[in-house]
C-alpha cells in the first residue's frame, strides 16, 4: 500500500511565506494555511521507542498566524492515530491503525475553515533482536524465546532465513516452538511485514544432536584409603552438569563409598561384603560398586563406571616391642593404617599369628628366630582383593641374656661349626662356650642315608652331607668328621659308590669325639680304606709267586695319618741333628715291616657266601682276618720296637697301633692338621704345642683336643699373616648358614664344590685336596693350593648365585628378610657385616657396598647385590 500525502497550498501562501518575493504574477490575497512537510512516512512507536516528527504550519493572508493541530479530524490526535502537540510535533501510535494513512491538519486559530494538511504514512517498526534463549537446542521439539524490540503481532521469526510459526508475546518478546530433527548451525532473526517490511539483526543458533554423557574412567580399581576422580563428560548440551550416584544412591553412602558433586569417589572405610557366589569360587570374588552419572540436562542420559574395590596398602607407623628374644613367642602391636580383615604378616621368614585386627591396629605373635645380622624385618600383608605388603619395621633379635658378644660368638662358631647362624650365635651368647661344647658332645649324630644297593650313587649321601651341615645340630661333630676325612683320606676316585663311602664317613662322624687311635684301628680295617690303599687282600710274602706284602697302606699310615716323614718337636717343628738336618722318623725298612703287619685281611665274607681269600668285595662290615695269609713273623716297628712272633692279624694290628701311639710325633702331627682344619693354616709353635699336649696327655682323645684348638687364645687373636682361606665346602656352607638358608635333601650343592677344587669325598688322592705344607706368598695356607684364579672366579660366582637364590630351588637363603632390610641400606649392610664378617667390615668397604646398594631402588636387587659383595669378598672367604 502506498500513501500519498497531499498538501494544498496556494501560490499566495507561498508568497506570504516570503520565500520568493519578486515581480511576477500578481500576489494572492486569499488566506491560506499550509503544512509542511506535506507528505511523510514514519515507523510507529513501540513500548520502548517514541517516533515523532515536527510539522510546520504556514498561515498566509491572515493576521493571526496561530493554528490548531488535528489528526484524522481529532484535535491533538489520540493513541490510535497518534498525537500531535500544539507545536506540531506528531508522535506515531504504538500500534498500526487500520488505515495507516494519517491526515494531519493545521487549522487557523482565527479562521478554522482555513487549514493546511499533511499526509503521513505509518509503517511497522524495525525489529531488533537482543537475545535468543536458548541459542542452542537439541533436535526434536524445542521452544526458543526471543527478546528484542520492535516486534509486532505480525512479526515472524526467521530460522536460517525461513519464517517459522511465531508466537507474539509482546513487542519485546517472541516465542518459537518447533520440531526440527536436522542438527545444524544456523541463525535466527525476525521479520516485520508491510507496511515497511524489515528484517532484524540475526543471532547464531544451533540445533544439536541429542544430549550424551560419557563417564571416565569406565572401569577403575580403587584401594580403600585412596580416592579416585571420575569425570562425567556431557556433550550436545549447554548444561554439562551431572548428578552422581554410587550403586544408585545419590552421593553414595558409607557402605559402598561416597562421591562428591565434583565426582571424587571415596571408598568405604572397610570393604563391603563380597557378592554371594553361586558357584564355588577358586579365587576370592571381586568386590565392585557402580558409579553413575546422570545428565542434569536430560535425566534419561546416564553413564556408569565399574569400580573394583581393593584392600588398602597397609602402612605401619610403629611396632612394639622393637626387639625380641630368640626362641620365645613374641607379641607385637602394630600400629598404622589400612589394615584389612584377613591381614597376614611376616617376621623375617616366619609367619605371624594375627590375634586382632582393626584398620589401624594389628596384634600378632610369632616364634622368634634369629634374623640375619641380628635384625629382622616385620611387615603385614593385606589379603586379596588387591593383596599388598606394608612397609617394614626392623626388629632386633637376640638372646635373653648374654655371656658373649654376638661378634665373639660369631667368630667362635665360624671355627666350631659350619659357620654361625643367627640362632646359633644367640644360643652361644646365652650358654657360653663350655656349655655349648658339652651340648655338641651330646648332640645326636646326623646320619647319612643307608645305601640301598651296591649301585647306589654317592650323590644322595653328598646331598645329605650338605643338608646335615646346614640344619644338623651336631655341628662340631660334623666339622670334626670332615676334618678327619681330610687326614685319614679315602677317595671316591677309587670307591665312588655310596655303599663304599658312606660306612667310612659314618665311622668318622661317630668317632669324631672319641679316641684317635681307636678310630685308626677302625680306619685300618675299613674295607673302603683297604681298597683305597691296597690293604685288602694284602698277604704275607709268597716267594714262590714273587709276592711281597703291599706297602701302600703301611706307608701312608705312617707318613700321612700319624707320624710323618721327619721327627718332630712337640711344637710341630722338625727335630734337627747336629748338622742341622731333619731326622727321618723311620726308614724304608720300617715301611716294609708295617706292610707285613698289615697282611691277612680280606673283605668280610658276604652274607650267605663261603669265606675265602681273597673274598669278593664287601663294604658292609670291617675287613676280616684270614690268618693263613697273615705274616706271623716278628716285626721291628717304630723306634726299634719288636713284635713277638705268632700273633694273629688283629693282635699284630693292635701292637702296631700301640707302637704308633707311643711315637712322640703323633701329637704334634695330628695337632697341626686339626688346627689347620679348624682355625688357621699357620699356627705358632706354642699353639701347636698346647694342643699337642692335650692330645698326648689324653692318649689321643679328640674332644679335649678340639676343645683346646677352638678355645686357644691364638685362635681369637690372629696375627695379620695368620688365618686360612675357607675351604670350598666351608665357604659354601658358612655363607648359606649366615644368610639363614634352608636346604632340602635334594640340594645340588655338590656340583659347586667340584668347580671350586674340593669335590666332596673325592680328593684326587690320599694326599687330600691340598697339602698341609702348601704355602701362599710364604704363608702356610693349604686351601690356596686349589684356589687358582679361575677357581677364585668360581667362588665369587658361587656367591652370585647363592645370594640371588639361583643355586637351586632346594637351597634358598632368606632373601625376603634382606629385601625387607633393604628399605634402609645402612641397616642392610650392617646386618650383612654382622652375619658374614663378625661385625668387622671396614668403613671403606661399607662405603663401597652402600654405593652399590644405592644405585637402585629395587629392594630385591639391593638385597642381592649387597649380599653378593659381602659374601663374595675375600674378607668373608678368609678367616679371620
Amino acid at each position, binding site marked *: 500500500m502506498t500513501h500519498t500525502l497531499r498538501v494544498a497550498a496556494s501560490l499566495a501562501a507561498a508568497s506570504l511565506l516570503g520565500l520568493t518575493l519578486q515581480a511576477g504574477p500578481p500576489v494572492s490575497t486569499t488566506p491560506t494555511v499550509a503544512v509542511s512537510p506535506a507528505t511523510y512516512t514514519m515507523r510507529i512507536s513501540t513500548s520502548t521507542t517514541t517516533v515523532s516528527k515536527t510539522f510546520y504550519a504556514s498561515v498566509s493572508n491572515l493576521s493571526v498566524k496561530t493554528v490548531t493541530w488535528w489528526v484524522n479530524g481529532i484535535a491533538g490526535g489520540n493513541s490510535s492515530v497518534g498525537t500531535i502537540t500544539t507545536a506540531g510535533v506528531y508522535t506515531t501510535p504504538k500500534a498500526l491503525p487500520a488505515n495507516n494513512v494519517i491526515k494531519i491538519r493545521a487549522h487557523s486559530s482565527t479562521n478554522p475553515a482555513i487549514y493546511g494538511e499533511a499526509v503521513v504514512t505509518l509503517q511497522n517498526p524495525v525489529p531488533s533482536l537482543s537475545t535468543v534463549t536458548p541459542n542452542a537446542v537439541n533436535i526434536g521439539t524445542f521452544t526458543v524465546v526471543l527478546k528484542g524490540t520492535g516486534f509486532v503481532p505480525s512479526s515472524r521469526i526467521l530460522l536460517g532465513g525461513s519464517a517459522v510459526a511465531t508466537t507474539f508475546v509482546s513487542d519485546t518478546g517472541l516465542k518459537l516452538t518447533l520440531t526440527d530433527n536436522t542438527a545444524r548451525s544456523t541463525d535466527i532473526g525476525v521479520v516485520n511485514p508491510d507496511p515497511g517490511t524489515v528484517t532484524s539483526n540475526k543471532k547464531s543458533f544451533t540445533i544439536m544432536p541429542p544430549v550424551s554423557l560419557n563417564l571416565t574412567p569406565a572401569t577403575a580399581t580403587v584401594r580403600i584409603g585412596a580416592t579416585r576422580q571420575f569425570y562425567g563428560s556431557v556433550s550436545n548440551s549447554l548444561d554439562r552438569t551431572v548428578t552422581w550416584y554410587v550403586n544408585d544412591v545419590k552421593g553414595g553412602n558409607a557402605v559402598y563409598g561416597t562421591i562428591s558433586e565434583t565426582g571424587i569417589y571415596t571408598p568405604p572405610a572397610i570393604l563391603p561384603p563380597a557378592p554371594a557366589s553361586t558357584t564355588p569360587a577358586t579365587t576370592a570374588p571381586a568386590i565392585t560398586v557402580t558409579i553413575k552419572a546422570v545428565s542434569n540436562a536430560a535425566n534419561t542420559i546416564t553413564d556408569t563406571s565399574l569400580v573394583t574395590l581393593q584392600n588398602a596398602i597397609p602402612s605401619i607407623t610403629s611396632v612394639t616391642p622393637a626387639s625380641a628374644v630368640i626362641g620365645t613367642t613374641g607379641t607385637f602391636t602394630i600400629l598404622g593404617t589400612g589394615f584389612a580383615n584377613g591381614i597376614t604378616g611376616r617376621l623375617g621368614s616366619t609367619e605371624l599369628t594375627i590375634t586382632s585386627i582393626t584398620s589401624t591396629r594389628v596384634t600378632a605373635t610369632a616364634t622368634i628366630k634369629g634374623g640375619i645380622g641380628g635384625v629382622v624385618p616385620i611387615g603385614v600383608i593385606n589379603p586379596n582383593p588387591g593383596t599388598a605388603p606394608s612397609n617394614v619395621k626392623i626388629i632386633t633379635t637376640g638372646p635373653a641374656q648374654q655371656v658373649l658378644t654376638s661378634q665373639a660368638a660369631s667368630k667362635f662358631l665360624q671355627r666350631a661349626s659350619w659357620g654361625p647362624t643367627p640362632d646359633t650365635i644367640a644360643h652361644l651368647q646365652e650358654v657360653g662356650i663350655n656349655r655349648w661344647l658339652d651340648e655338641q658332645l651330646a648332640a645326636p649324630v646326623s646320619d647319612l642315608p643307608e645305601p640301598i644297593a651296591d649301585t647306589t650313587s654317592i650323590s644322595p649321601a653328598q646331598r645329605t652331607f650338605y643338608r646335615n651341615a646346614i640344619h644338623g645340630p651336631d655341628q662340631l661333630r660334623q666339622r670334626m668328621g670332615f676334618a678327619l676325612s681330610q687326614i685319614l683320606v679315602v677317595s671316591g676316585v677309587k670307591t665312588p659308590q655310596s655303599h663304599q663311602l658312606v660306612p667310612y664317613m659314618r665311622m668318622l662322624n661317630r668317632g669324631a669325639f672319641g679316641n684317635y687311635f681307636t678310630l685308626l684301628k677302625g680306619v685300618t680295617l675299613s674295607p673302603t680304606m683297604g681298597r683305597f690303599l691296597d690293604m685288602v687282600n694284602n698277604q704275607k710274602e709268597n716267594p714262590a709267586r*714273587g709276592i711281597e706284602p703291599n706297602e*701302600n697302606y703301611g706307608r701312608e699310615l705312617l707318613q700321612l695319618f700319624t707320624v710323618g716323614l721327619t721327627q718332630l718337636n712337640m711344637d710341630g717343628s722338625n727335630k734337627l741333628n747336629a748338622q742341622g738336618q731333619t731326622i727321618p722318623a723311620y726308614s724304608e725298612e720300617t715301611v716294609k715291616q708295617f706292610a707285613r703287619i698289615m697282611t691277612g685281611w680280606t673283605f668280610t665274607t658276604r652274607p650267605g657266601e663261603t669265606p675265602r681269600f681273597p673274598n669278593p668285595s664287601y663294604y658292609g662290615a670291617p675287613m676280616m682276618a684270614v690268618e693263613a695269609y697273615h705274616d706271623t713273623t716278628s716285626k721291628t716297628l717304630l723306634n726299634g720296637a719288636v713284635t713277638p712272633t705268632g700273633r694273629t692279624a688283629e693282635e699284630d694290628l693292635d701292637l702296631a697301633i700301640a707302637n704308633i701311639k707311643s711315637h712322640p710325633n703323633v701329637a704334634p702331627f695330628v695337632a697341626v692338621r686339626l688346627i689347620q682344619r679348624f682355625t688357621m693354616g699357620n699356627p705358632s709353635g706354642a699353639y701347636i704345642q698346647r694342643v699337642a699336649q692335650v692330645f698326648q696327655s689324653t692318649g689321643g682323645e679328640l674332644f679335649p683336643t678340639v676343645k683346646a684348638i677352638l678355645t686357644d687364645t691364638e685362635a681369637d687373636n690372629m696375627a695379620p699373616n695368620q*688365618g686360612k682361606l675357607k675351604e670350598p665346602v666351608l665357604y659354601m656352607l658358612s655363607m648359606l648358614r649366615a644368610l639363614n638358608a634352608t636346604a632340602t635333601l635334594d640340594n645340588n650343592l655338590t656340583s659347586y664344590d667340584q668347580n671350586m677344587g674340593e669335590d666332596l669325598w673325592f680328593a684326587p*688322592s690320599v694326599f687330600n685336596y691340598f697339602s698341609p705344607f702348601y704355602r701362599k706368598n710364604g704363608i702356610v695356607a693349604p686351601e690356596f693350593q686349589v684356589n*687358582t*684364579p679361575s677357581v677364585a672366579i668360581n667362588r665369587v660366582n658361587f656367591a652370585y648365585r647363592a645370594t640371588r637364590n639361583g643355586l637351586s630351588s632346594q637351597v634358598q637363603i632368606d632373601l625376603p628378610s634382606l629385601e625387607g632390610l633393604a628399605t634402609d641400606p645402612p641397616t642392610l649392610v650392617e646386618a650383612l657385616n654382622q652375619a658374614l664378617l663378625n661385625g668387622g667390615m671396614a668403613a671403606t668397604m661399607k662405603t663401597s657396598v652402600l654405593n652399590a646398594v644405592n*644405585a*637402585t631402588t629395587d629392594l630385591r636387587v639391593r638385597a642381592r647385590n649387597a649380599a653378593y659383595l659381602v659374601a663374595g669378598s675375600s674378607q668373608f672367604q678368609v678367616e679371620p
Partner: protein
Amino acid sequence: MNTRRNFLKVGCCALAKATIGSQFAQMAAVNALAQSTGADYKALVCVFLFGGNDANNTVIPVSSQYSQYATTRGPIAIPQAQLAQLPTPSGAVYGLHPALAGLQPFWTSKQLAVVANVGTLVRPTTRAQYLAGQSQVPSNLFSHSDQTSEWQTAMPLGGNTGWGGRLADKFLLYGTNQPSSFPLGTSVNGGALLLNGTNTQPATIQPGSQGIGLEGSNPDNAAAVARDKALQEILTMDAGYALVQAASANTQEGIRVATLVNQVTQSNPLTTQFPTSGIGTQLSQIARLIQVRTQLGMRRQFFFAGLGGFDTHSNQLGDQQNLFAQLAPALAAFQNAMAELGVSDKVTLFTESEFSRTFQPSAGAGSDHAWGGHHLVLGAAVKGGNLYGRYPTLALQGPDDSGNRGNWIPTTAIDQYGASLATWFGVAQNDLTAVFPNIVNFDINTWNVGFMS
C-alpha cells in the same frame, strides 16, 4: 652371552680407577710382553678318551694281519673297504676307523701320526715275564680309576702329581712364562690330575657359552655396573690380612684373564667353526686361549680336554662310531684353527686313554678292559704320516698277549710317549727323570719314540 659384557664391564671399571697415565703404562707393558713372547711358543693338548678306547678298532692293519683281525674280532670287525687308508713309508698300510676318516688329510699332509701299543709299564715286560710274575707291573691294571690316574701321573705304582704338572713345575723353575701369573696348565674338562704339579696347579676353565668371567655383569644395567665397581674397590682395598690380600689377588687375576680372553676372542673371532659337541666346545675354548697366548704372556701351555663313554663292554661298533663322529670333526677343527692362528707347528695334540680293550670280543658285541693301545698325535711339529712303536701281533696268547684274550702288553710306555712330547716341549734333558721318574727303567735310547720333529 655375557662374555663381551664382562669385558666391557671390567674395561669400564679399570678406566674409572686408573689415571690416564697408568693406562698407557699398562698398555705399554702388555705390548712389551706380547713382543717378547711372540715367537717362542709351544703348547700340548691332551685329549683323554675316558672309559678305555678300543684301539683295536681305531687303527687296524690292512697290508698284513687283516685276516687275523677279521677272524678274531668277528662281530665287531670293521670291513676293510670302510677303513681310511694310512700308508706308511715302510710300505705297511693301516686303516683308520671310518668315523675318523676326516683326519686322513692330516696323515697325508704329515701332521698326524699313530703311536702303537702305548700303555702303563713299570719296565719293559714280556709275556713270559708277565705270566711268571717276574716283572713288576703297574698297580691295578684293568682298573679304570687306577689306570686313568697312572696315564696322567706316569707313575705306574701310584702318585699324586701328573706328568704335565711336573713339567709345569720345571718350567716354573725355568721361568719360561715369567712374568705371567697365568698357570701353564689349563683344564677345560674339570679337575685334571695330569696337570697337577707339586708347586703348580692348573687353571680350570669351564668351556662354553657361559663365558669364563664374573656372572651377572651387565654394562647396560646401572645397578650391575655399580655392583661390579664396588667389587673392584673391595678387591683392591687393604684389609690388613695377608691371606685376604692373597685371595683378592687371585680373584683379580681370574678377572684379568677372563677379561683378556673375552676381549681378544670377542674382537677377533676365529673363522674356523667348531662343532657344538662337548669335545668341540672344549677344543674351541683351548683355541681361544691359544689365541690370547701373547696377551697372557705365555710361552708354554699344556691343555687338558676329554671325551667320555669309551667303556664299550657292549655295542662296541655303534658306541665307538658315535664317539669318533664327535671326536674327528673337533680335532680337525682344532687343527684348522691352529693353522688359522699360525701356530700349527707350535701346538701338538695327543690322545690318552686309560687302556685299550680285549682283542677278543665279549658277549654283547663289546670288548673288555685290556692294556696297551694306539694313540694319535696331531700337529705340524709331528713327523706325521707314519706309525711309531710296534704294532702288536694280533694273536690270542701270542707274544704280545698278557693273557688269552688279546690284552696287549704295551711296547711303548706312557713314560716314553710323554717324554717324546716333553722333549719337544723343551724340558731339559736332565729333568726328564724328574718328570718321568719311572723312565729310568727303560733303555735311554728309547726314551724318545721319535714322532716329534
